[in-house]
C-alpha cells in the first residue's frame, strides 16, 4: 500500500518538476545576449518600495500550503513565505539556510542537522528542533497527500530524533544510506511551526503574508527578523497572477509589474528594443529529452536506440525549439554535478550511420509515434523533420498535460521529456534509478543498479564520482533518454529593480530577499 502511494507520488513529483522545467522554454525567438551581472547589479541595495512579480499560473484555486504547492505560482509564493534547512545556491548546489551545520555519517544512513541560533518565525516564535521534526513529518504525511513526499520516500518518518533544542537526526528506512537528502528536502521542505495552519500560513521566509486572493494576487510585507541580516530590502512584495504570457509582458512594459519570471523565448525579441526592461539569461542544466521506451519495439534493439541518437541534430533543436536559448546535451543529465563524467565524447549527428544501423536492425522505413506533452511539441516537430532525413516517419501526437501525465504515462513508446536541474542521484531517482517510479524509458541494467546502490550511500564525492562515471557510461551506451539540450531560464526585469543576476538556476527572480526597488514611487 505504502509503496504504491510512494510510487504514484514520486511520479507526480517528477511530472510537476518536469512541467516546471518547461516553464523557461517555449516556441521560438532569437538569441538575446545574456545580461551581465554588472549591468543589473548596479547601485547599492536600498530599502523601501514594492516589488511586483507577474506569474503565469493557470491555477485559479491557488494555495499557500508549505508542503503541497502544486503549480509554479504556489511554488514561487512559497519562496516568499517559507525558508528551508538548505537552499539552492547560484550553481544549483545546496548550501545551508536555516541549518547552521549538517552532516551525514560515513554511509549516509543518518543526517544530523543543527539549526542556527535565534531563528524566528513570522509570529515571533523561536524555531526549534520540534518544528523541524513536525515539518518533515507533515511533508511526508500520507494524509496530507503531498506529491513531493515521494522525494523523501526513504526517510523513516517515525525515526526523526530530537538531539537537543536545535539539533535533529534523520534516519532512513532499513538503515539505507541516502546521499541526496539535502537535494530532495531542499525543494519542498519548508520549515513551519508545530501549530502550522495552512489557512493562516506562518513561515520563516523573507516576506510575511498580508493578503491572498487565489488566482489573482498576493501581497506580502517585509519580515524584519529574517535570518539573513539586512534582508529583505523592499517593504512589500506583490505577486500577480496572469492567465497568459502576452498580457504579462504588456503589464511589464506598461510598468504595472517589475518582474516576469520564466518568460517564453519568443518574447525575448519583443523586449530587446525596450530600454525599460532587461532579459536575464540564466544558463541552467534543465534538460530536454526524447524518452525511448525500452520495453517496447522498436527500442528494445540497442541499434535502433543508437540510430535515434545519431539522427538527432541537437544543434538545430536548440536553435529552433529553444530559439538558441540553451546548449547541446550528450544524452546525460546533471552536468553541474561534481561527479559528472566530462570525458564521455559528445555523440555526433550522423544520419548515414543512423541509416546503416536501422538497416542492420531490419528497421528501414520505420514508423514511430512521438507523444508530446505541453511545451514539447516544437522539439517534437523539429525532430520529426530530422528523422525524415533518415527514412524514419515520426508522427507527432500532441496531448494535453492530463493525458500525458495520466495512467498511460509510462506506456508511451516515445515521448518528450525533461527535468529541472537536479544532482545526478536526484535525477536518477526521478527517472532511471532502480527505485525510480517515473521510469518512462523502463531502463534496467543489473550493473547500473549495483553501482546506484553503492553511490547513494557514498558521501565522499571523489569515490562517488568513480561510481557515477561508470553509471553514466552505461546510460550513454544503453539508456533510453535522448537528452538533446539544456534550456536557459529567461527572466524579464524592469530597470527599476536591482539584485537580479544570472545564475545557473531558474530562481534568479525568486530570491526575493536579494531584490530591491531602485526608485520608490
Amino acid at each position, binding site marked *: 500500500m505504502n509503496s504504491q502511494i510512494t510510487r504514484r507520488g514520486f511520479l507526480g513529483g517528477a511530472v510537476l518538476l518536469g512541467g516546471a522545467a518547461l516553464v523557461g522554454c*517555449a*516556441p*521560438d*525567438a*532569437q538569441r538575446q545576449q545574456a545580461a551581465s551581472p554588472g549591468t543589473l547589479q548596479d547601485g547599492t541595495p536600498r530599502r523601501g518600495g514594492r516589488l511586483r512579480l507577474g506569474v503565469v499560473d493557470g491555477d485559479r484555486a491557488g494555495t499557500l500550503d508549505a508542503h503541497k504547492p502544486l503549480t509554479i505560482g504556489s511554488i514561487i509564493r512559497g519562496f516568499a513565505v517559507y525558508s528551508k534547512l538548505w537552499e539552492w545556491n547560484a550553481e544549483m548546489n545546496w548550501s545551508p539556510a536555516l541549518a547552521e551545520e549538517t552532516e551525514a555519517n560515513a554511509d549516509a544512513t543518518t543526517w544530523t542537522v543543527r539549526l542556527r541560533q535565534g531563528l524566528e518565525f513570522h509570529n515571533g516564535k523561536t524555531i526549534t528542533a520540534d518544528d523541524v521534526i513536525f515539518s518533515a513529518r507533515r511533508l511526508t504525511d500520507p494524509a496530507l497527500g503531498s506529491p513531493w513526499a515521494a522525494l523523501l520516500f526513504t526517510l523513516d518518518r517515525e525515526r526523526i530524533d530530537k538531539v537537543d533544542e536545535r539539533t535533529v537526526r534523520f534516519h532512513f528506512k532499513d538503515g539505507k544510506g541516502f546521499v541526496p537528502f539535502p537535494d530532495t528536502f531542499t525543494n519542498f521542505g519548508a520549515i513551519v511551526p508545530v501549530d502550522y495552519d495552512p489557512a493562516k500560513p506562518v513561515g520563516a521566509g523573507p516576506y510575511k503574508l498580508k493578503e491572498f486572493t487565489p488566482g489573482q494576487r498576493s501581497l506580502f510585507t517585509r519580515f524584519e527578523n529574517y535570518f539573513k541580516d539586512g534582508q529583505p530590502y523592499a517593504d512589500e512584495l506583490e505577486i500577480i497572477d496572469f492567465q497568459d*504570457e*502576452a498580457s504579462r509582458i504588456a503589464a511589464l512594459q506598461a510598468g504595472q509589474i517589475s518582474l516576469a519570471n520564466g518568460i*517564453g523565448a*519568443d*518574447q525575448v*525579441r*519583443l523586449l530587446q528594443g525596450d530600454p525599460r526592461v532587461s532579459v536575464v539569461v540564466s544558463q541552467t542544466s534543465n534538460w530536454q529529452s526524447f524518452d525511448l521506451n525500452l520495453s517496447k519495439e522498436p527500442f528494445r534493439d540497442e541499434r535502433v536506440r543508437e540510430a535515434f541518437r545519431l539522427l538527432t541534430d541537437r544543434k*538545430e533543436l536548440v*536553435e*529552433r*525549439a529553444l*530559439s538558441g536559448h540553451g546548449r547541446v546535451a550528450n544524452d546525460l543529465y546533471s552536468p553541474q554535478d561534481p561527479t559528472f563524467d566530462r570525458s564521455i565524447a559528445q555523440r555526433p549527428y550522423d544520419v548515414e550511420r543512423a541509416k546503416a544501423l536501422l538497416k542492420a536492425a531490419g528497421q528501414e522505413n520505420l514508423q514511430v509515434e512521438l507523444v508530446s506533452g505541453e511545451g514539447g*511539441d*516544437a522539439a517534437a*516537430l*523539429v525532430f*520529426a*523533420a530530422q528523422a*525524415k532525413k533518415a527514412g524514419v516517419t515520426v508522427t*507527432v*501526437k*500532441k496531448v494535453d498535460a492530463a493525458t500525458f501525465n495520466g495512467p498511460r504515462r509510462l506506456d508511451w513508446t516515445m515521448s518528450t521529456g525533461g527535468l529541472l536541474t537536479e544532482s545526478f542521484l536526484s535525477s536518477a531517482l526521478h527517472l532511471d534509478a532502480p527505485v525510480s517510479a517515473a521510469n518512462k524509458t523502463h531502463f534496467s541494467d543489473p550493473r547500473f543498479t549495483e553501482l546506484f546502490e553503492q553511490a547513494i550511500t557514498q558521501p565522499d564525492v571523489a569515490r562517488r564520482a568513480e561510481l557515477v562515471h561508470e553509471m553514466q557510461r552505461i546510460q550513454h551506451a544503453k539508456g533510453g533518454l535522448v537528452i538533446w539540450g539544456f534550456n536557459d531560464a529567461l527572466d524579464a526585469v524592469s530597470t527599476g529593480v536591482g539584485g537580479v543576476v544570472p545564475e545557473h538556476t531558474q530562481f534568479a527572480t525568486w530570491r526575493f530577499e536579494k531584490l530591491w526597488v531602485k526608485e520608490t514611487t
Partner: protein
Amino acid sequence: MTLLPRDRQVRAGALLTVLVVLVAVLGPVAAPYAADELVGPAYGAPAPGAPLGYDYLGADVLSRVLLGGRSLVLTTVCAAVLALLAGATIGMLAAWTGRLADRAVLWCADVLLAFPHLVLVLLAVSMLGRSRPLVVATVAVTLLPGTVRLARSLTLGVMRQEYVEAARLLGYPRRRILFREILPNVTTPLLVHLGAMLTWSAGLIAAMSFLGYGVAAPAADWGLMVNENHGGLRIQPWAVLVPVALIALFALGVNTLAEGLGRTVARVEEER
C-alpha cells in the same frame, strides 16, 4: 443565370469566394516547400525566396499558406453540405409526418441549439479523436438544428399551397408529393441558408484548429498557423496575418454571396 452578374453583392461575394477557394485548391501545386520542411530561421523576416518570411520553427510561411487552405475549405464545405442534406430531410419529414415525430424532432433541435457549438465540437473531438470525418460530422450536427427548423417551416408553408392539396386529393404517393411538389419549392431558401452555414462552419473549424483540436502539425492549416505563430505576432506578423486574412475573406465572401443570393431570390419572388 442572368441574375447573378446584375447583383453587385453576389458578384463581390462570388469573386472573394472563388479567389480563396482557388488559393486553397491550387495552392498545394504551387507551394515551393513541403509543410514540414524547416528551411529558414525561426520567425525569420521576409527574404528573397520567402516573401512571407518563416514561421515559429523556420518553415516557409508562403508554402504553409498555400498548403493550409485545402483542409479548411474541404472540411467546411463537407460539413455544411452534410448539414443541409440531413437537416432538410429531417425537417421535411417532420413537417410531413407531423404530430409526435414533429414534436420529437423539434425538441431535439432545441436541445442541440441550446448547447454552445464550440463546446459540443470540442467535447466530441477530445473524446473520440480528431479524424476529419468526425470533425465534419460533429460540425454538421451543430448546424443541423437551424436547418431542420428552416426546412420544417418551409415545408409546412408549401404544404398549405393548393397544388399540394390537389396532389393529395388526386392520390399521388407521398414520396412523389414530397420530392416533386415540395422539394423544388424549398430548395432556393435552403441554398441561401447553405451560404450562412458555410460561414459558421468555416469559423468553427478555424477556431478548432486555433485551439489545437483541428488539423495536427506538421500538416499545414490556416487556423493552426494562427495558433502556432501568435506568440510572434509582433516579430513576424505575416505568419498570423495572412492565414487570418484568408479565413476572414473566405467567411466574408461566402456570407456576402449568400446574402446577395437571398436578396435576389426575394426580389424574384416579389416580381412574381
